[in-house]
Structures are given as structure tokens and as C-alpha cells.
């Protein structure tokens, strides 16, 4: 079972490739796996019909006690045969039907994945696994229905199906979880009826499960999506309607019938809604002119009747359920495929234009005829037996049964009329006027419907065979107690036979008075159309509008409001948190002494920032910002952080270059505070509160003694285990190298993203060209050695960084500064020395070095990024140095990449 599930799934994944390779024959090739599954399942029939069941299990989420348990019993086998059997025919059929569609490969993939999901659903023995497959069918059907996604109508239908079945799925999940809690088991096969029905949660479980099943099986009032799903290509409709999707809900109802059924509540709901759905479907079906749409509504009818039959829980009722299920799968699959063939051959599905096709399309005609007779419930077709048993089952129920029987006679009479319209009207009589002359379709298109239709006939005529092999065990699986199964075509003059005769008679009348019936149905139907589909549209529209209104409250599109609110919330949280801590922020506990350079640095930083904040202009702002950064660098020196100061210095230099290059094309910025007095006060308040929060936070933090001895650990271990004197550098490239790897990755990604934006408008393949910013011979001559020296210096900084101030970051920035000089002198088209390599290559090399340095540790069976050292000729070499080289290259490449795209006038 697992193999067949996996096989079909893999088959689905491979489908697009198979299609690309085999094209015309892909349909046949892809049908092999489902066909093999069908044969395997068919071979299990003798075993299962003796009352046995097959188990296969795979631990899936052991922690939650969820297994992927598969169980093959009578009911599952019946469904599995239908799914794989009809599925095989559908795959072959769609190959012919969609022969020229350019996305046929994708279609096969969807279809086969859908088949997998459906098969998994009926085989799963675990509640949660079943639910996962259940949802998978919803998603796969969404893809199938929206296959013609260029059409708005298809998208709408698909979304409707997804929302309705998906929403029902949520209810079902809740119901299944409650069921699991109530019975303390997650296996279908171990559910105890008494435990569930005696439990306080029983009503909730029943309602939730029913909602799930009803949405899936298109019961009133959730039936909307099924007719709209007609927008799918015909093979999909045929499959969805006959053997899958809508039958999933029916399957679950049947599966849970022994557990949840038996009580009056269950029966009442199922019979009432089922009968209502059936009648509604029949009324809506008769008013259609579109063959496909008519079939769709008859499916609604049949689903209603199936639901109703489960609700009866009588021996005849349950037998009728199984019979009807099989009969319907056969004739509905056949009819849909045949209608697709008619559509294909004649270009229309309108019954007013179709007639007399029999002589033109004899084989399709035979298929439709046989299927339609089965649909109408004429003897000796399988549909007839099903109908007989249905009436018998209802009558068994007593007075309520009689009422329902009357409704059913009406419903089935309408079905008889619909069947008549489909076959008699379309195929008999004189040929109608069509735009082009129809012809018989290709073998792949008629073989499917014909097989199914003949099957329906055969099962009815030779009814001993299905009784023994299939129906019996399936009925036992869904009944609470033993049921005596015996099929017959003729059981004497019983009330059921009389009801059948009445149905046929009434149906014939309806057929000949079709126009009158249709007029009547139209009058009723218009009410329904208004309240159904239109209501759905309105509901959805309201929902979207509501969601839009809610989102608009938060997504107002004003950057400033976002900023202000966010800042304010953060500040208030911080301030409130400190208030709760009850520590004084002004506890002068062991503070370091004030140093003059530090104070000067701070003042410079503040002055610069204030200038950038309030002044008007362009270059003034750039200069202020630069001054602010330099002040900060000075401050860093004063607190014994030379590496940080150097980095700050280099970054500040590059920042000014970038700013100057961008701002020269921008208009002058006016002085800040031009948004009106009110806004100014509000913004100033937000800023001040935030500043206050930051200051108080840091003061509170430094008032406490430094917790832990992390700093000391690094200081002590840097030399002995990291072989480096520069503790900051050793932390970066050894102790915390994985962090650094993440950080250079961020730098690389930001650089790639920024470069794309900066270089917009230039063809991606063309070599970067551009005129230099400052074209002067003197400059060119002088700059070349200078840049070379800077580059050598940067390498020296990289090398010595492990022991003295320096390292990959600073080295990379210094090299980038040298490159800046080159590029402003020679233009972006510079193709000398290192500049010949594309910057992204350098970034990639850098990241590769960094990661590669980490892999050495793995190779030595230590953890990732463990530093390894060798000392050939007395020179200490190690993976941290390689890592630092990676940092160097990444930073250098990143800055180079951004500069290249920014600088230089386009030619």
C-alpha cells in the first residue's frame, strides 16, 4: 500500500518530465503505475472478502503518537479500486483530451498528486494522517480546478472550492482532535462507539465532523462549489465527481458511521439534509442546457442520496449506499468523459443544439446510452439494483421513510428525465446544425467511458460477482452489526418495485414535458441563484473589505507614523521596565575616569549629528555626518578600542564617498522641522522620549557590576588556545567565528541588493563602462602607485590583525578605500589588476574561504569552525587566518561591487 501511494506520488512528480520526453504517449506511460496499483488492489479482493484487513505502518510523529498507519478493509478496498481504476482511465483520457495544451505535463502532475492524496485518505487508519491527506485533496483540487487560470471564472471557482472545503477541513480537524481525546485513540480501527457516544463531547464531535464531511461532499448549504468546479477541464470534473473529492466526505461519513451513527441526531441530520440536497440538485439539474452543468447538479443529487442512505442505517439502506456509490462512480465517470468527447468533437455542450449524434459517434453513443440507463435506474443495470435497495431501505424505516420515499421518487424521476435528455435528446433524432461536422473521437477518448459504462451494465447483470467480492465486506465495514447481503434484480412485487415503477413513469412524463418542468424549476431556481452564489460573492466582498479596513488601521502607508509609533512603544516599554526594576540609575558604582579626548570625541559626534539633523543643504549634511563619525572614532580610541576606532574611521570615509556620490544628483534638502508646529512638537517629543529611554537604560546597566567573567575568559584564553594577541580579532575569527560568518553574509547580501538598485538601467550583460569622475593625467599617474600601496597595506593589516590592531574587516575596508581612489580616477570601466575580477566573484570567494575554514574542523571530526593550526618554517598558520581572509575578501568585494555600480557617469 505504501509502495503504491509512493509510486503514484513519484509518478506525479516525474510527470512533467515524462510528458516533455514522450509527449503523445505520456498519457499511456503515466497510466502504468495507477494501473499496477489497481491490479494490486484487485488481487487483494479475495483476502479482504474473507473479512480480513491488511495493515502497514510507518512511525511518523512518534512524539505525538501519530503513525502513518494504512489499513485496507472492505470499504477502503472499494474506494481504492475506484480511485486507481477510474484514475487510470482518466489519465489516459486526459492525454487525448488536452493533447495540445502546453501545460499538460503540469496537469498530469496535479492529477497524480491528487490521486495520491485521495488514495491516502481512504487507506489511512490514523485520524491525523487521514486529515493531512484530506487537506491535500483540497489543495490538489484547487490546482486542478484553476488549471485554466487565465480565466477569472476558473480562479473564482477554485478559490470557492478551496475556501469551502478548507473551512470545513478546519472544523473536521477540531472534530477529529476531540474524537481522539474522547476515545484516547488515534486509530479508526480502534474507535469505540460506546466511549464516543457516552462522552460529553459527543455533540460537538458530531457537528464538527459533519461540517467537514458536508463541505467536502457538497451538501446543502455548502453545495455551491461543486457546480462551479465545472470550470475545470473535463477529465478533472469526471474524476472529482465520480471517484474522488466529493466522495471523500461520503467516505468519512461511512467510515465513522459505526462510531458516531445509530442515534437519532445523526440519522435526522443526515436524512434531512441529504434528502434536501438531493431534491435541490435534481431541480437545478433539470433547468440546465449545458450537458456538463446538468451532470454536475445530478452529482449533487446523488451525494445527497448517499448521505441520506448512511443516515438510514438499515440493512437495505447500507447495501444501497455501497451499490449506489459504485454505480454512480461508473456512470458518472463515463458520462463526464463522454460529454468531454462530445464537446471535443462538436464544439458545444448545449443540448438545444445537439441531436442525432449516434450515427456520427457510435462508440461514444453506446457508452452514453449504457451510462444514462444506469443513471436512470433501468433494469438490468447496476443503477437499477441500487435504486431498488434504496427504496427498500427507506421503506424499512417506517413512516418517516415513506415521506422521504415520496421526495426520492420525485428526485429520481427528475434524474430519469435528465438521463433522457442526455442520451435521447443528444444522440437520437435527426442531426442538428453544428458549426463543424462532428466525428468519432480517438480511441483513448472513447475507451474510458465505454469500459465504465459496460462495467456498470456487467455488474448489474451478473450481480453475484460484486455481492461476494466487494459489497459484502464494504457493507460490514460501515455497519454497526452484521448485515445480510444479497443482491437481486427481481425480488417480486415489493413496495420498492412499485416505487421504481412510479419513478420511471413520472420520469417519462417529466422528459416529455421537459420545457414545462424547466419553467417551473426556473421560477424556483432563480430564488436559489440569488441567495446562493450571489450571497457568496457578497460575503467574500464584505470579508475582504473588513480585512482591508483592519489592515488599513496598521498599514496606513505613512512611514513617519510607523516610525513614531514603533519608537514610542519601544521607549515606553523600556522606561516602564526600568520603573519596575526599582534600581537607581545614578549609582556611581566603579565608573571609569573621564578622559579629555573622550569628551572631545563625544562633543564632536554630537555636534556633527546635530548639524546633520537640522541644517539645510547637501554637502553640509555630508560633512556634518562625517565629523560625527570621526568624533566617535576618537572616542573609541580614548576607551582603548583601537580596532573599533579603525573600523569606524574606514567606514566613515567610505560613507562620505557614497553619500557625496548619491547626493550630488539630489536637490538641496531644506532645514528640518518644516512639517508644521504641531508635527514638530510631536516628533520632538517622540525623539526626546526615545533618547531618554536609551540614556537611562545604559545608565541603569552600568550602575550594576558586570555580571559573569566572560571578558576575563576571553582575555585569558585568547593566546593559549587562539594563538592570537589581539583578543577582539580572536573573538571574531575563532571563538565566535560562526557569528561572524553570519555577519559577513549579511554584508554580502546587502551589497548584492544595493548594487542591483544602484545599477538599475544598465544592461546586465554589458561590460561596465563609464567615464571617470576626475579625469586628469597627473591624477592618473599619481594614483596608480598610491592605490597599489594601499592595497599592500591592507594585506599587511590583514596579516598582522591576529596579534596587533587590524584584521579582515579593517583590511577589507582599507583595500576598498584604495579601490575608491582608482575608480574615481579611471572610471567604472577600469579593467586593471584586481579590478579585472568581477566583484561578485570576490564576494563568493570570500564566503567560500570563510565556510571552507569551518569545514576543516568538520574534516578533523571536530565541530564546525574549530580552529586548527600548523607551523611550517616557524610561521603559525591556521584556519582562523583563512577565515579572516574570507572576511577580507567579502568586505572588499561587497564595497567594490556597490562602488562599481554607483560611481561613474554612464556613457
Amino acid at each position, binding site marked *: 500500500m505504501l509502495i503504491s501511494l509512493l509510486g503514484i506520488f513519484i509518478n506525479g512528480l516525474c510527470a512533467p518530465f515524462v510528458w516533455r520526453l514522450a509527449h503523445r504517449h505520456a498519457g499511456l506511460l503515466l497510466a502504468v503505475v495507477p494501473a499496477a496499483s489497481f491490479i494490486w488492489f484487485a488481487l487483494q479482493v479475495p483476502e479482504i472478502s474473507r473479512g480480513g484487513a491488511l495493515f502497514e505502518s510507518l512511525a511518523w510523529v512518534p512524539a505525538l503518537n501519530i503513525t502513518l498507519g494504512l489499513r485496507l478493509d472492505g470499504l477502503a478496498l472499494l474506494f481504492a479500486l475506484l480511485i486507481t481504476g477510474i484514475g487510470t482511465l482518466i489519465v489516459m483520457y486526459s492525454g487525448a483530451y488536452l493533447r495540445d495544451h502546453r501545460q499538460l505535463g503540469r496537469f498530469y502532475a496535479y492529477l497524480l498528486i491528487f490521486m495520491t492524496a485521495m488514495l491516502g485518505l481512504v487507506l489511512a487508519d490514523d485520524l491525523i494522517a487521514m486529515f493531512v491527506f484530506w487537506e491535500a485533496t483540497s489543495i490538489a483540487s484547487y490546482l486542478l480546478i484553476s488549471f485554466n487560470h487565465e480565466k*477569472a471564472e476558473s480562479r*473564482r471557482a477554485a478559490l470557492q472550492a478551496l475556501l469551502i472545503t478548507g473551512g470545513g477541513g478546519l472544523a473536521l480537524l477540531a472534530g477529529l482532535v476531540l474524537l481522539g481525546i474522547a476515545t484516547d485513540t488515534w486509530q479508526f480501527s480502534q474507535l469505540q462507539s460506546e466511549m464516543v457516544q457516552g462522552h460529553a463531547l459527543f455533540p460537538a464531535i458530531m457537528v464538527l465532523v459533519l461540517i467537514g464531511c458536508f463541505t467536502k461532499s457538497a451538501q446543502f448549504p455548502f453545495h455551491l462549489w461543486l457546480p462551479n468546479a465545472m*470550470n475545470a477541464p473535463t477529465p478533472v470534473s469526471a474524476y472529482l465527481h465520480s471517484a474522488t473529492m466529493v466522495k471523500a466526505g461520503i467516505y468519512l461519513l461511512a467510515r465513522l458511521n459505526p462510531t458516531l451513527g445509530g442515534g437519532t441526531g445523526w440519522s435526522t441530520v443526515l436524512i434531512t439534509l441529504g434528502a434536501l440536497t438531493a431534491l435541490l440538485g435534481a431541480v437545478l439539474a433539470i433547468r440546465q*442546457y449545458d450537458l456538463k452543468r446538468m451532470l454536475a447538479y445530478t452529482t449533487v443529487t446523488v451525494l445527497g442520496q448517499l448521505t441520506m442512505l448512511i443516515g438510514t442505517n438499515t440493512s437495505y439502506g447500507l447495501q444501497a449506499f455501497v451499490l449506489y456509490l459504485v454505480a454512480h462512480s461508473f456512470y458518472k465517470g463515463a458520462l463526464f468523459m463522454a460529454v468531454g468527447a462530445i464537446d471535443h468533437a462538436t464544439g458545444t455542450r448545449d443540448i438545444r443544439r445537439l441531436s442525432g449524434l449516434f450515427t456520427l459517434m457510435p462508440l461514444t453513443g453506446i457508452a452514453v446510452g449504457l451510462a444514462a440507463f444506469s443513471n436512470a435506474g433501468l433494469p438490468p443495470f447496476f443503477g437499477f439494483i441500487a435504486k431498488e435497495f434504496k427504496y427498500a431501505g427507506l421503506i424499512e424505516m417506517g413512516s418517516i421513510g415513506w415521506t422521504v420515499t415520496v421526495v426520492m421518487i420525485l428526485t429520481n424521476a427528475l434524474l430519469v428525465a435528465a438521463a433522457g435528455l442526455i442520451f435521447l435528446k443528444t444522440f437520437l433524432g435527426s442531426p442538428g446544425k453544428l458549426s463543424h461536422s462532428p466525428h468519432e473521437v480517438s480511441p483513448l477518448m472513447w475507451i474510458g467511458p465505454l469500459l465504465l459504462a459496460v462495467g456498470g451494465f456487467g455488474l448489474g447483470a451478473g450481480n453475484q460477482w460484486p455481492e461476494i467480492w466487494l459489497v459484502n465486506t464494504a457493507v460490514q465495514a460501515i455497519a454497526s452489526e452484521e448485515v445480510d447481503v444479497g443482491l437481486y434484480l427481481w425480488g417480486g412485487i415489493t413496495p420498492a418495485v412499485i416505487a421504481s415503477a412510479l419513478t420511471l413513469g413520472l420520469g417519462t412524463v417529466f422528459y416529455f414535458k421537459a420545457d414545462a418542468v424547466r419553467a417551473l424549476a426556473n421560477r424556483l431556481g432563480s430564488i436559489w441563484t440569488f441567495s446562493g*452564489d450571489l450571497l457568496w460573492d457578497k460575503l467574500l*466582498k464584505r470579508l475582504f473589505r473588513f480585512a482591508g479596513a483592519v489592515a488599513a488601521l496598521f498599514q496606513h502607508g505613512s*512611514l513617519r507614523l510607523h*516610525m513614531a509609533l514603533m519608537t514610542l512603544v519601544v521607549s515606553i516599554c523600556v522606561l516602564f521596565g526600568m520603573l519596575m526594576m526599582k534600581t537607581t540609575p545614578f549609582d556611581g558604582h566603579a565608573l*571609569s575616569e573621564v578622559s579629555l579626548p*573622550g569628551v572631545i570625541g*563625544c562633543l564632536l*559626534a554630537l555636534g556633527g*549629528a546635530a548639524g*546633520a*539633523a537640522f541644517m539645510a543643504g547637501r554637502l553640509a*549634511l555630508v560633512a556634518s555626518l562625517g565629523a560625527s*563619525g570621526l568624533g*566617535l572614532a576618537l*572616542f573609541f580610541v580614548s*576607551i*582603548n*578600542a583601537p580596532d*573599533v576606532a579603525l*573600523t*569606524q574611521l574606514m*567606514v566613515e570615509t567610505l*560613507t562620505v564617498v*557614497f553619500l557625496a556620490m*548619491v547626493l550630488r544628483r539630489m536637490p538641496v*534638502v531644506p532645514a528640518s522641522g518644516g512639517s508644521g508646529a504641531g508635527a514638530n512638537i510631536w516628533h520632538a517629543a517622540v*525623539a526626546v522620549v*526615545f*533618547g*531618554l529611554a*536609551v*540614556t*537611562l*537604560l*545604559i*545608565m541603569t*546597566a*552600568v550602575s550594576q557590576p*558586570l555580571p559573569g567573567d*566572560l*571578558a576575563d575568559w*576571553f*582575555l585569558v584564553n585568547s593566546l593559549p588556545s587562539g594563538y592570537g594577541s589581539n*583578543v*577582539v580579532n580572536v*573573538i*571574531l575569527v575563532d571563538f*565566535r567565528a560562526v557569528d561572524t560568518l553570519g555577519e559577513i553574509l*549579511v554584508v554580502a547580501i*546587502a551589497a548584492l*541588493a*544595493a548594487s542591483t538598485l*544602484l545599477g538599475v*538601467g544598465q544592461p546586465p550583460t554589458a561590460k561596465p563602462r563609464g567615464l571617470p569622475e576626475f579625469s586628469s593625467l597627473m591624477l592618473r599617474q599619481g594614483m596608480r602607485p598610491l592605490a597599489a600601496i594601499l592595497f599592500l597595506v591592507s594585506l599587511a593589516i590583514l596579516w598582522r590583525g591576529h*596579534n596587533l590592531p587590524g584584521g579582515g574587516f579593517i583590511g577589507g575596508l582599507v583595500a576598498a578605500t584604495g579601490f575608491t581612489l582608482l575608480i574615481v580616477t579611471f572610471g567604472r570601466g577600469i579593467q586593471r589588476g584586481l579590478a579585472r575580477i568581477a566583484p561578485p566573484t570576490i564576494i563568493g570567494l570570500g564566503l567560500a574561504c570563510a565556510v571552507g575554514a569551518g569545514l576543516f574542523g568538520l574534516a578533523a571530526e571536530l565541530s564546525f569552525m574549530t580552529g586548527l593550526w600548523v607551523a611550517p618554517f616557524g610561521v603559525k598558520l591556521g584556519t582562523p587566518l583563512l577565515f579572516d581572509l574570507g572576511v577580507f575578501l567579502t568586505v572588499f568585494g561587497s564595497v567594490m561591487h*556597490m562602488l562599481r555600480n554607483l560611481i561613474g557617469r554612464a556613457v
Partner: protein
Amino acid sequence: MEWIGAITAGIMAALGVWMMLDRHLMRVVLGIAVLGNAINLGVLTAGRFAGSEAAFTFAGQQVLDSANPLPQALVLTAIVIGFALFVFALSVLKRTHELHGDKDTDRVSQVTERPAPDQDEEEPYPPAEDRKP
């Protein structure tokens, strides 16, 4: 010294926020840089300015009175990342200017946001039933 650091960081943060609330996208971008600097300073300050020497340990010397190396390592990378992100912001500014010219921060999103091409506000889809011949 810690207090001076804290106050400087606070004022710079306030200035940064003030700039980010400005109407001009260019000043917003500069504000990002100022705020980034403020936070870097804050992180360093929170690590205390203990010690009278930089964090270097040479062979044969006793580690006595060094600065805390950890916040320095953190801030060092933060500065470089901050720079990369600043350039990214700058490139967004450049692109916005090229496309819209209008640098009022509250109007950019109005200009750029458009409804999906096939979504008509008034009549999303024709109801399926009404579409019949």
C-alpha cells in the same frame, strides 16, 4: 565616562529618530546612520570602560587591566553591517528619486502601491449562473 557615553548615545539616538521622522527621505537615510552610531556607542558603553589598556595579551605578560573585548568585537562587526545596510538605504533613496522624484516619505507608498491588474473593485467576477446562454 560611562555616563558621558550614555548621555551622548541618548542624544544621538534622539537626533537620529528626529531625522527619521523628517519629511525628506534623504534626511531619513542620514538618520539611519546617526541612529546606528548611537546604538553602537550604547552597546560599547554598556560593556563598561574598565581597564587602562586595549585588549591585547602578549606572551609572557600577565593580563591585568584590559578593556572588555567582547562588546568591541560585537560593535566592530555591527559597524560594517551598519555600513552595508546604510548603502542599501542610500540605494533605495537613489532609486526612489529616479522613479518618483518626490521624496516626501508619506507619499512614496501612495505612488508605488497599485492594485493587482485583474482586480476590479466594483464587480470582481460575473456570477457563474448569470453567464449561461
